[in-house]
């Protein structure tokens, strides 16, 4: 920041230092940090997917072992937590996106709820389609 001059009447300005744990101080800041940490859940899920792909590449036995390993209680608990973070990411992402990309119709700004709603619709459809591809029996 620009260095502030001190004068006869203002021998010094007091500046409060920011605590390293500023994000614990208020629940709004905590929620923000949780929102930012959803990125770790995103990376975790991708890594899980990479291990699945590796197992598929290695053959049926590897795939069975992978399925078996995913049943470990530790992984299930972790995945349950990761699931919560992924949902937090999806919800915050869809709710904030209309602020970054305002939609205008006839010069009037469309309410954010109406912009976010189709995203949720798309999310449901995409989820159903993927589940169908994975689960359908040929």
């Amino acid at each position, binding site marked *: 920041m620009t260095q502030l001059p001190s004068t006869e009447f203002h021998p010094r300005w007091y500046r409060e230092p*920011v605590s*390293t744990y500023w*994000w614990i101080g208020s629940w709004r800041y905590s929620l923000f*940090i949780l929102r*930012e*940490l*959803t*990125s*770790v859940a*995103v*990376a975790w*899920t*991708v*890594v*899980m*997917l*990479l291990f*699945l*792909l*590796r197992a*598929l*590449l290695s*053959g*049926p036995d590897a*795939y*069975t072992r992978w*399925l078996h390993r*995913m*049943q470990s209680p530790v*992984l*299930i608990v972790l*995945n*349950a937590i*990761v*699931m919560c973070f*992924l*949902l937090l*990411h*999806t919800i915050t*992402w*869809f709710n904030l*996106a209309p602020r970054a990309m305002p939609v205008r119709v006839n010069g009037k700004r469309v309410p954010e709820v109406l912009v976010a709603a189709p*995203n949720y619709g*798309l*999310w449901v459809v*995409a*989820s159903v389609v*993927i*589940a169908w*591809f*994975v*689960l359908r*029996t*040929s």
Partner: protein
Amino acid sequence: MSKPSNEGFFWLLFSAGGVVAAVFLPVILFLFGLAFPLGWVSPPSFEHLLALARNPLARVFLFVLCSLPLFHWAHRFRFTVYDGLQVKHLNEVVLVFCYGGAVLGTLVSGYLLLRM
């Protein structure tokens, strides 16, 4: 006047990855991380999944599904580390860890999907 920085490029990757992650990742984690291990649904057979992953369109989709969300993570996690722990002085380490991780993950996914 300073030249516009390349932050815009990384922000675009972050945003695109955020969309992909928001739309597609929850269902994948739900199926493979919770529903199959807990026996709520019986997992698909090896042959079925392999056939699915070998489909060219599915390969492209899986590649996007792996790489973009990793760049989303890299960007967001970088700022979380900066702000949450106030470690701006470790700038290079954080940059290499985040974007290096994303590039590595992208290469691994590309390799796996090409060999599939």
